[in-house]
């Protein structure tokens, strides 16, 4: 973990500028330390624990030497705590080669002892440091940098996107296996990065590397080969995202911006996919996907809650479905066969746990579908079918608009797989954007947040489609406020969690619709209220739940599905304002990274 960047510029381009811009664009992938290596006759390395801004401070002593070649890294610790020493880039003892790496080298202990036997002294606790020493060993054996790099990488087992620079060379060498790596083709030089935002300011033309491929990048050329050195031809894709999409447009945090972008994101997600005249969901992307067997969703975190939402709808519409945490999905945990459909839900399309589960499903012969936000991501490329949620880039670590878009997209997937034809459902989905706008216009979440900022713990309950929303509400709050928050199925409260509630533990209850489910949830609320516990109802006013609630977060009266998607927005705002009142680092909560590319 977590983000790498590389640049080889035409003479006169300052690589450091490009690298620092790139690192800022990658900070969402991790930010406990950062570093750069600049190469020409010799290699200069600068690295620091902390965010990219601490690295900037370290660079004050750097004499601008006009180096046009370099690599950079922003780290999220897996091996060894965050420290200057463990920050990338890592070099060999004589500073002939510098390496940045995203991923995990699984055989690093074995490689390390072999290198130690050769007298190598390690200066960090990272798995990555074996790489420059392996390359140095190949150099000493008389190999040129290109061959040395390939020979060294060939000894690695595990996941990696690796880039290296050599002293006296104006070339960057790179390799990819199970970690994202994309090349940028620019006018002033060539780029590589874990993700496109790192260099989108400079170019929108990209090449996505595949696993097992090597790239050799100079100012004039980019060549991609396989492990034996055979050239591979790649198409150049053009990215349609606007570089300025990364701006906060006047909001204090990306998270608040992204919460407010949800009506637009939902419109994009639904556009051209809903035909109200026929009552059909029209997903061309899924043409030919007709499940005979059980549908299994695999996902992590917020995406898992969206997966539960999708599985609930599939079950209601007559197809067996389940949501499984991707990290719990391994050999034999779920029966798989050629009839199985496995749907991976991942915002980034790079989530390591989800990718591993999808690869396992592929091997078992199951049909795989990726529901993702990132075009050209690993998930999109390695599955049989892909549905993009079209939410646009999300920078805040806490997922907001991508959850709403996932809920909408998975509703469409469920309708499509079950051939569920319903004008009511189409109307429901078409009302979501407006419903969210109404909540954004009128929400009292800020005032309610203020009343509960000092609570000891927070509980969220819901039933049916509101159950995954309750889980998501709790996750959002814990992620960004660092307060203890848990979500429960409303009916489960009395089976244990009720022992936890008290006067300083507000219960946030989702009650949408006016049917039996809502009435049962009100029964659960009464149990809580009777014990003097503060209750905040998130409701559309179709029941009398407000009689038992201390506060109400109102949502407009909408059909099922829409009401649950819209109700979640109140919980996003609640989490945002509580975290804001507590002065938390909302866009970059401690210990968390946006795209988790380690298992």
């Amino acid at each position, binding site marked *: 973990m977590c983000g790498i960047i590389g640049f080889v510029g035409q003479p006169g381009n300052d690589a450091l500028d490009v690298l620092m811009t790139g690192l800022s664009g990658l900070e969402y992938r991790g930010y406990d330390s950062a570093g750069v290596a600049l190469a020409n006759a010799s290699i200069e390395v600068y690295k620091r624990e902390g965010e990219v801004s601490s690295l900037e401070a370290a660079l004050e002593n750097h004499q601008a030497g006009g180096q046009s070649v370099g690599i950079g890294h922003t780290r999220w610790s897996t091996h060894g705590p965050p420290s200057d020493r463990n920050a990338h880039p890592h070099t060999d003892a004589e500073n002939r080669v510098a390496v940045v790496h995203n991923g995990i080298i699984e055989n690093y202990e074995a490689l390390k002892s072999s290198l130690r036997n050769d007298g190598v002294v390690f200066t960090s606790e990272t798995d990555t440091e074996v790489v420059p020493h392996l390359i140095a060993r190949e150099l000493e054996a008389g190999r040129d940098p290109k061959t040395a790099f390939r020979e060294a990488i060939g000894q690695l087992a595990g996941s990696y996107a690796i880039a290296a620079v050599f002293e006296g060379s104006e070339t960057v060498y790179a390799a990819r296996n199970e970690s994202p790596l994309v090349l940028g083709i620019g006018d002033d030089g060539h780029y590589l990065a874990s993700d496109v935002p790192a260099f989108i300011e400079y170019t929108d033309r990209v090449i996505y590397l595949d696993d097992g491929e090597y790239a050799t990048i100079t100012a004039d050329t980019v060549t991609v080969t396989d492990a034996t050195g055979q050239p591979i031809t790649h198409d150049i894709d053009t990215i349609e995202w606007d570089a*300025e999409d990364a701006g906060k*447009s006047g909001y204090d945090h990306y998270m608040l911006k992204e919460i407010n*972008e949800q009506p637009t994101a939902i419109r994009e997600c639904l556009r051209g996919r809903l035909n109200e005249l026929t009552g059909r969901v029209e997903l061309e992307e899924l043409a030919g996907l007709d499940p005979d067997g059980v549908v299994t969703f695999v996902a992590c975190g917020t995406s898992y809650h969206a997966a539960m939402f999708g599985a609930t709808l599939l079950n209601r519409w007559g197809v067996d479905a389940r949501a499984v945490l991707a990290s719990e999905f391994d050999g034999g945990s779920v029966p798989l066969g050629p009839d199985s459909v496995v749907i991976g839900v991942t915002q980034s399309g790079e989530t390591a746990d989800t990718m591993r589960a999808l690869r396992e499903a592929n091997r078992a012969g199951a049909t795989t579908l990726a529901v993702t936000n990132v075009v050209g991501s690993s998930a999109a490329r390695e599955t049989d079918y892909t549905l993009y949620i079209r939410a646009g880039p999300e920078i805040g670590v806490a997922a907001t608009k991508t959850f709403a878009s996932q809920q909408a997209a998975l509703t469409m997937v469920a309708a499509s797989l079950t051939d569920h034809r319903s004008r009511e459902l189409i109307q429901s989905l*078409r009302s979501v954007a*407006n419903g969210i706008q109404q909540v954004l216009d009128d929400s009292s979440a800020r005032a309610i947040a203020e009343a509960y900022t000092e609570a000891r713990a927070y509980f969220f309950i819901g039933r049916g489609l509101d159950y995954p929303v309750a889980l998501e509400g709790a996750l959002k709050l814990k992620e960004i406020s660092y307060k203890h928050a848990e979500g429960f199925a409303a009916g489960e409260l009395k089976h244990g969690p009720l022992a936890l509630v008290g006067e300083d533990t507000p219960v946030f209850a989702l009650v949408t619709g006016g049917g039996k489910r809502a009435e049962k949830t009100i029964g659960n609320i009464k149990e809580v209220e009777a014990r003097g516990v503060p209750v905040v109802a998130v409701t559309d006013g179709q029941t009398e739940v407000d009689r038992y609630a201390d506060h109400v977060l109102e949502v407009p009266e909408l059909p099922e599905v829409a009401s649950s998607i819209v109700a979640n927005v109140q919980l996003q705002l609640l989490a945002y304002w509580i975290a804001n009142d507590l002065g938390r680092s909302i866009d970059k909560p401690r210990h968390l990274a946006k795209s988790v590319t380690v298992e």
Partner: protein
Amino acid sequence: MTDHSAIVLAAGEGSRLRPLTKHRPKPMLPAATKPILEHVFDTLIDAGVTDITVVVGYQANRVQSHFGPTHRNVPLTYVTQEKLLGSGHALLAAESAIDGPTLVVYGDQLVDGDIIADVLDTHAVADPAATLGLIPTRDVEEYGGVRVDRSHDEPENGTTVTEIVENPRDDREYYLNAGVYVFDERVLDAIRSVDPAVGESSLIDAISSLLASESVVGAIADGVWVDATYPWDLLQIADDLLTEGDVESQVAASAYVHDAATVVEPVVVPEDCVIGPGAVVGPNVCLGENVTLGANATVTHAVVDSDTRIEDGATVRDCVTGRGVLIGPGSTVVGGPADVEIGDSIHRDVDFGALLADYATDEGGSTFVPGAVVGADATVQAGSVIRGNIEDDLEVRG
């Protein structure tokens, strides 16, 4: 001249357009199918502006979330006027964006690109402290009137401005202040030097004060200038934009139009709209995105904002709706001339069927007598007859 910076003042509510402004500022009301402010940005960008600072205040969120960080690749910088204390105060909020001559326009008026070009050209030649766009028209009472001295006119150098008056009521000859200015840093001192009248610091007062010591010129321009003062003006603006061809009559590719529906041009049917079987839409109808017309609905001469549903069999004429409005099955907005009460004045013989503000819900089978105004978030129960004004949030049965 190229590479201009511009400041757009978009912080005010526009209270005469209530109840349409309950949830959004006037710049976000629809001129035909897109917000007035979007037309303003487009005009600026077409005139060569490459950097826009937007002063937001009232319901700022609606502006920021609609446009995001750029418009047509031109960066938008948002500054917030925390308290709405007048147009002068608003410009002070954008103080850091004034570095040399800077174009300043209002975000709630449609201004022709020619006016902007004339003001920029005149300022470049005459190099005064401020240049104002002036429009020859008699109709200045509702706006700002500008007096000029034309005795030694040289057209390229502009015309010397002698006096600027808000809402002039006398018989003297005025030009209309188009609200298109070029200022430099001197305007900031002028704003600060003026004692705020009734708590509000006005840009007009600041220009008056600037006139006393510095040269202020006017660029007399012939070009279209439109301001929506009352809700029915939105119908007129849409008509004008369709007639002039500024907004093209079209049906978007992603709209679903039933084979048995009738589209009478000019109309604008944007993305995600649904037109049901037997429905008739047009002429002179501007729909927002994701609008639905049910089976056999008839909509003529209307501005219907995003996400609104007009259900089966409803008839809607001369009507303005906000966002997310529901007009229920079988309801009728009769249309035609009306006497409309706005605030404490009555406007007679206005072509105005009805206004339903954002999120208003009509359950169906209702009749809207010409001139009816339904407030934001209000509910009209099935089978009502609606006359006059229904306040925001009310539920009525009439």
